[in-house]
């Protein structure tokens, strides 16, 4: 297991990631949701920086640079532009109200802590708290996709899921794998571009990003 993972900082960053995803369930304003995504992205960038400091490779450094550029600058710029252009100050509502959503998040965390440790021990015996926290982030991100009605929220849910998976992989000691880095770079650049274009097109057709207003399909 990578030495830097024994310090307190990775656990702080993992917790920051989890809390920002949980808060995405509660925020009512799209701008705050985007800033919460920036917080997540910063946590991931700092984790990649830590990994680079302890064992730099060209591809890892490139991944860090791309992560900072795309997640901290380009993606938020795309989202803020979408919000400004279509005046989307307030995000669409959730299917569950706040107390129920919080209860669901708590239940997800408890279940994850009960089930995931067996996997964690097999992967990295010393880092199971980090892995459990990032596994909780994965499932809370999935819940975000289900719970919120806005297309922008769904995009942030997908990107939060990706951040959580990256964090899990980093904590499992996979940061040196070219595999992880290639996957990150690809999904960042292409997916964000296409999803943002689609979100604009949806607003043009439906006059809203609330996905419950999209009821043209009968299948």
């Amino acid at each position: 297991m990578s030495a830097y993972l024994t310090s307190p900082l990775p656990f702080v960053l993992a917790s920051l990631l989890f809390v920002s995803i949980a808060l995405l369930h509660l925020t009512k304003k799209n701008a705050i949701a985007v800033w919460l995504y920036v917080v997540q992205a910063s946590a991931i960038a700092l984790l990649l920086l830590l990994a680079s400091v302890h064992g730099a490779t060209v591809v890892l450094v490139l991944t860090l640079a791309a992560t900072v550029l795309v997640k901290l600058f380009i993606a938020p710029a795309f989202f803020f532009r979408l919000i400004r252009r279509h005046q989307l100050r307030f995000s669409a509502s959730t299917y569950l109200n706040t107390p129920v959503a919080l209860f669901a998040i708590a239940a997800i965390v408890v279940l994850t802590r009960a089930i995931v440790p067996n996997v964690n021990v097999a992967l990295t015996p010393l880092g199971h708290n980090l892995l459990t926290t990032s596994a909780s982030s994965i499932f809370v991100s999935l819940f975000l996709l289900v719970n919120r009605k806005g297309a922008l929220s769904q995009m942030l849910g997908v990107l939060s899921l990706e951040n959580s998976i990256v964090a899990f992989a980093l904590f499992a000691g996979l940061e040196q794998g070219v595999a992880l880095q290639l996957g990150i770079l690809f999904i960042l650049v292409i997916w964000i571009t296409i999803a943002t274009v689609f979100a604009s097109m949806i607003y043009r057709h439906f006059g809203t990003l609330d996905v419950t207003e999209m009821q043209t399909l009968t299948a």
Partner: protein
Amino acid sequence: MTLLYLLILTPLVAGLLSLLPRTAFVVGAVACSALLVEFVSGLIVSAEVVRNGSVAAGMLFALDPLGAVVALIVVTLGLGATLYSVGYLRAEVAKEIIGFRRVRQYYTLLHLFLLAMLVAIASTSPILMWIAIEATTLSTALLISFYNKPSSMEAAWKYLILNSVGLLLGFFGTLLFLYPAIHGNPQGLVTWGDVLSRAPALDPVVAKVAFVFVLTGYGTKVGFVPMHTWLPDAHSKAPAPISSLLSGVLLNVAFLAVLRFKAVADVALGPAFSKELLVFFGILSIVIAAFIIFSQGNYKTLLAYHSIEHMGIIALGFGFGGIAAFAGLLHMIYHSLAKSALFLASGNILLKYSSTKIHNIQGMLKTLPLTSALFIIGFLVMAGVPPSGIFITEFLILSKGISINPWVAGAALFSFVLVFAGIIKHVVPMILGDAQGLPRQGEASAWTTVPIVVLTGLLVIAGFFIPGWLQALLHASTARY
């Protein structure tokens, strides 16, 4: 080796060249030429695989027997869909549904779609395969929203989000499978060979969790129930040639990914775990799709749900294993040919009647005689009417299944009967029906009929005769399952 590079790079070059022409004729000619090159090189590469067991091109690409079967399906149906597209798009331009700019976009995205599928099939790395399958999602999302209508936008958005989530879960499962290999080779690109050789070192709990994530993730792309909700909308809203590729080809590429990871899971855990999961998802997909098919009102959506049912049958075959796995792979070939022909025929119906609602379609035998005949043949084959090839494969799968799990085999048989009843219920009124107020008789052009004739001809012939080289390829592909 060179031909494998040619097979993979041709759609890339064709996609770039498609941006240059200023007439639909030239861009269509580029597309047809490229697909001819891909078809011929696909045949030659497959022959090489039959002779030598596999073909490699550098460190990034290689084709084994299973990959060769799926690649052959891609190039054959790709050629058919591209030839059909020439006539289909010409008719749509004549009706002023689309303009030249859209035609050019269509062909560019089509080539990128084919490129992504071929890279997914031939890549030596699980991560490159994942990236290529994600690329198919992105290119086809734009094709599904091709007509820029609210319903197609909604279908494309649903497709993009659900498949992206599914593929992220598949990515997570992939990373778990790669764990021992990455720790043994941190700098290089981990290959399928590395993953298989280190599979015995994979912790059983990790292997189970990884396979569940992979099956759920890539299974979303395959269209297994309950991850299927994007499929009927996406396949019904896309242009007909794209629907034929989505149903007849892309689902197989995603299932190939599942099979590759199944091989790894079988080494780490033994075959029972993955087989039980495939049987579960297979029978669930078959039964749910059968009930929905019976109550469908849209013929393109009917075909899409039919695809869900047939991917369930293929999964069932590989879940039962042995001769059923061989039958499952053969079923994949028959389903691909039939579904592609049926979707292309549905394109002719849409051009003639301007509606996808079943109750708006009557008297096809008078207005589209050739398309009707091919439509009937395609549906009879898909329904498993003897002596079609699909009847044989379903029989083999069920006969193996009865000895393993009679309840599952019984549920599948009931579902097949329900699907047959549903097909008769929907298709007969479309073909026959009231002659008053029918559109003008006649097919649109040879471009929109000859590809369907060829695909249907191949389907019928393959039901009675499988060449020795293809039999050898099928046996080699399914030996480990």
